[in-house]
């Protein structure tokens, strides 16, 4: 293959980018549609017996049945809802805490800023999952809410660190000096100049963190620290599938595929957002 000429290479790169964004949108949209659908309709009663125990996949049960004879496909569909709720909730909490702390650190006096920055760094050295485990342990018994809270708090350190760096970069700009000279108060600088400027980068990061939160929630549930049984989290489905791996080895495939498709969708969406959010590119269009 010959080396492509510069403009053409740029064009293929851009079409590839918009393609990844579309695929991401479709994958996430599909999960969202399924999640909304489960609110009004599911193929089977999620908690009732729908067939024999540990049936292999068939037309009636596309993903098979679990050890209590419940339809796995129904549970996986409900899993979409739980994953989206946990992901959105965790990212919302992380955004609220993280952006606030990050902005505060960037505006604070040097010592406070250093202390906050060091704290973010140390917290980031611990994997999200480990911090979340500690928060779940702290909130006592595991529930859907404690999982959301735990992941939100764990991710907020990452958001805070990123926000602090981004805000500092913006604060060094001439237009901030100009706004200050013009007498703008610092809340007005934050809301009118800083946040709009860092939003594109932040939103890309939120999409990535959403995917990571979905994985972390599944891991929490897998470890038995996530939402308790009536909630069909993918992680718990996988944990149950591992328990019956000798009699029904197929049970671990479908929930994992569902999980991976949502996370990939989110990652692709983040890639696409990075492109759209880039103002220089927006102007060119």
């Amino acid at each position, binding site marked *: *293959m010959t*080396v*492509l000429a510069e403009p053409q290479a740029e064009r293929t790169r851009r079409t590839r980018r918009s393609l990844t964004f579309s695929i991401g949108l479709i994958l996430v949209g599909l999960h969202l549609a399924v999640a909304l659908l489960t609110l009004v309709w599911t193929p089977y009663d999620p908690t009732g017996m729908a067939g024999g125990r540990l049936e292999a996949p068939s037309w009636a049960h596309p993903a098979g049945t679990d050890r209590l004879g419940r339809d796995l496909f129904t549970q996986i569909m409900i899993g979409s809802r739980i994953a989206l709720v946990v992901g959105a909730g965790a990212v919302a909490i992380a955004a609220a805490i993280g952006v606030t702390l990050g902005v505060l650190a960037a505006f604070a006096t040097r010592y406070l800023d250093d202390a906050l920055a*060091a*704290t973010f*760094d*140390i*917290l980031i*050295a*611990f*994997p999200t*999952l*480990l911090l979340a*485990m*500690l928060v*779940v*342990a*702290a*909130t*006592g018994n595991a529930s859907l809410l404690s999982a959301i809270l735990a992941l939100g708090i764990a991710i907020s350190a990452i958001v805070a660190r990123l926000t602090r760096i981004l805000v500092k970069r913006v604060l060094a700009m001439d237009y901030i000096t100009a706004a200050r000279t013009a007498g703008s108060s610092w809340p007005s600088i934050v809301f009118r100049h800083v946040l709009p400027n860092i939003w594109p980068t932040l939103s890309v990061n939120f999409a990535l963190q959403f*995917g990571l939160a979905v*994985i972390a929630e*599944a*891991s929490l549930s*897998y*470890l*038995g*620290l996530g939402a308790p049984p009536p909630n069909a989290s993918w*992680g718990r489905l*996988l944990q149950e*599938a*591992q328990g019956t*791996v*000798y009699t029904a*080895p197929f049970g*671990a*495939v479908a929930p*994992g595929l569902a*999980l*991976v498709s949502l*996370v*990939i969708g989110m*990652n692709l969406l983040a890639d696409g957002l990075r492109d759209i959010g880039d103002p220089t590119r927006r102007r060119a269009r």
Partner: protein
Amino acid sequence: MASIVLFVLLRLLPGDPANALVSVGADPAQIEAARRQVGSDLPLAQQFLQFLTSLARLDLGTSFVSRTSVLQEILARLAVTVPLTLLSFMLAVLIAVPLGILSAVKAERWFGALISVISQLGIAIPVFWVGILLVTLFAVNLRLFPSGGFPPQGWAAPFEALRALFLPIVTIAVVMSASLLRYVRSATQDVLGSDYLRTARALGSGFAEALIRHGIRNGAVPVVSILGIELATTLLGAVVVERVFTLPGLGSMLLLAIEQRDYPNIQGVLFISTLLVLLIGFFADLAQRWIDPRLREKLGNIRR
């Protein structure tokens, strides 16, 4: 610094640690006695001071539940976690570095693109799912490796120990190499676009020669810092893989301690892992300076 964060985090856990000692429905006098035993009736500052002095002596206390020394237990479990982490890490590097360089150099070819797509897949896959699938394939269907557990004799039975660790190592290495690969790839891309490589080529060295002589040393610096972070993450993240394969490592100790509210054990595991993470970071820094002499000169202002 790290110990302060640790202490605050642990004290944020509601519920008195003494609760782990007394049975449900204990009367206030019993609870008071337990609090005195644990030391949670003392003022916070004094608790913290005690916490610091015992850490300095490496005395991590005794477990509430099993009444054994926390440090002894941790050392026994590190014998599983450390080999698991290091071997997976080495395997991941062996996979990621050649493939990452290849995918950057041959980005225009189909396999370059394929490697990128696979690594994109790799970062979206939870490690425990890979583990379960490998168990299904190699332990259940092919019966080549055990589906979990560790020989009770430990490393006294080296062959069985390695066999027990094989699937966990592959599991971690597969997931880790996917994310490592992306960093190696982008570092290589930076090298490929650099002026010094063009200069070397202009001076007549071959492409492979230029890449090996000038590229690897330059590209390695950012990759080494990522390697350090990844190694630390693997060490701390081993908890999930250890659960999948029911390995008696540090992670499963932490999980059990959290379930049992065994505070000395939680504290001990976190303290030792923080220590190891800081050590890894330190060595990654040293390695970077060894690779890049320029970093040695600005000793003062290096921040990871």
